[in-house]
């Protein structure tokens, strides 16, 4: 089998996890309360671990080793969705992004447990259990803050409206979408998006938040083909600084 469709899928998932993992780690020491500091730091560690598992699969398919892949590419070689690279901004945005992204990611890995590519199905079976804690965390806070005070509701709503076009970019289709679906590697971005929307609506229906009108929003795409916002390269520069100074550094 031609591996390009599979590699494309693995790269975009791994890059999403790495980049959002890095953003989450930027909350370490800055969380609005200690528990949130720990939560975002733990999710960062999980996500970087997930990216490692996926980069390892790529390595087994002939790509470079995980560290090289993670630390030596430039922004235009990354396949993450633009949503994941946006700066953390205020906590309300980070929480909304975490909710929208992890809801999609949990469903994606759930679907991938059925993948025809067995090594990916194995990783998915592992990761989906861990992601339950991420979605539990997101749901708990969206429920609480999404029905709390006027300020918490309006801030979350504003962030939700802002984040939604970027969140839709998660589902930007790959040029190999048909092969991926036909070969049973993954059910595809459209199927994922449908499930995601149902789940997001279900959770928001218990809060005072509402989804923006999809007729008037345009998905922000490009991330999957290496066209990123101005925010990614500075993130990569920071993330890879030690590696570039001393590639053989022992941690």
């Amino acid at each position, binding site marked *: 089998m031609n591996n390009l469709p599979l590699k494309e899928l693995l790269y975009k998932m791994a890059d999403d996890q790495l980049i959002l993992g890095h953003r989450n780690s930027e909350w370490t020491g800055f969380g609005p309360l200690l528990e949130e500091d720990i*939560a975002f730091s*733990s999710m960062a*560690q999980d996500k970087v*671990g*997930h990216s490692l598992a996926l980069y390892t699969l790529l390595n087994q398919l002939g790509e470079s080793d995980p560290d090289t892949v993670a630390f030596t590419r430039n922004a235009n070689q990354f396949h993450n969705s633009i949503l994941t690279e946006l700066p953390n901004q205020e906590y309300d945005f980070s929480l909304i992004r975490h909710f929208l992204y992890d809801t999609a990611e949990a469903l994606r890995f759930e679907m991938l447990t059925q993948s025809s590519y067995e090594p990916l199905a194995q990783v998915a079976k*592992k990761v989906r*259990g861990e992601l339950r804690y991420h979605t539990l965390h997101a749901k708990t806070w969206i429920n609480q803050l999404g029905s709390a005070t006027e300020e918490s509701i309006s801030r979350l709503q504003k962030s939700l409206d802002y984040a939604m076009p970027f969140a839709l970019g998660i589902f930007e289709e790959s040029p190999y979408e048909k092969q991926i679906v036909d070969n049973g590697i993954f059910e595809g971005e459209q199927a994922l998006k449908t499930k995601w929307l149902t789940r997001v609506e279900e959770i928001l229906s218990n809060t005072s938040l509402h989804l923006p009108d999809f007729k008037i929003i345009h998905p922000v795409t490009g991330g999957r083909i290496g066209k990123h916002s101005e925010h990614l390269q500075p993130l990569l520069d920071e993330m890879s600084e030690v590696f570039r100074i001393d590639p053989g550094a022992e941690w």
Partner: protein
Amino acid sequence: MIAPTPSIDTIYEWLEDVKDPEIPVLSLVDLGVITNVEINDKKVTIELTPTFAGCPAMEVMKSEVIEKLKSKGINDAAVNISFRVPWSSDFITEKGKKALKQYGFAPPPSNKLFVDLEILENAICPRCDSTNTEMKNAFGPTLCRSIYYCHQCKEAFEQFKPL
């Protein structure tokens, strides 16, 4: 001197001495992360499954296994970290769960119980066995632990996460 080839059971016995670096009362065998042991001629190959994909202790466990085998005269050993058998907290042995409780951690409830994470609300306090407890944070000092508060004995405690 050439050491005789050990049996697989003997290797498991040796690995009882290798502890989880983050929870030093728990051996790797009791933690359930040893998913295969193979002896081929003189070469010993151990398969290790990660508890959490991002667990930073994996590399430490790997090198400690190699060290342990070396101390027993096995110089040709390999440890492969693999997702072939995805780890679940149900892999922790009864002995391991007991050790966790003695150490002050609530052992994980059976993974099969928690279709929904709501079950996590009623962890059993490892000190007083009360279920009048509240989850304070799904995330704790390490990836595998959550933080709870017991309303009965008014103490905070940690639970090994069901996964």
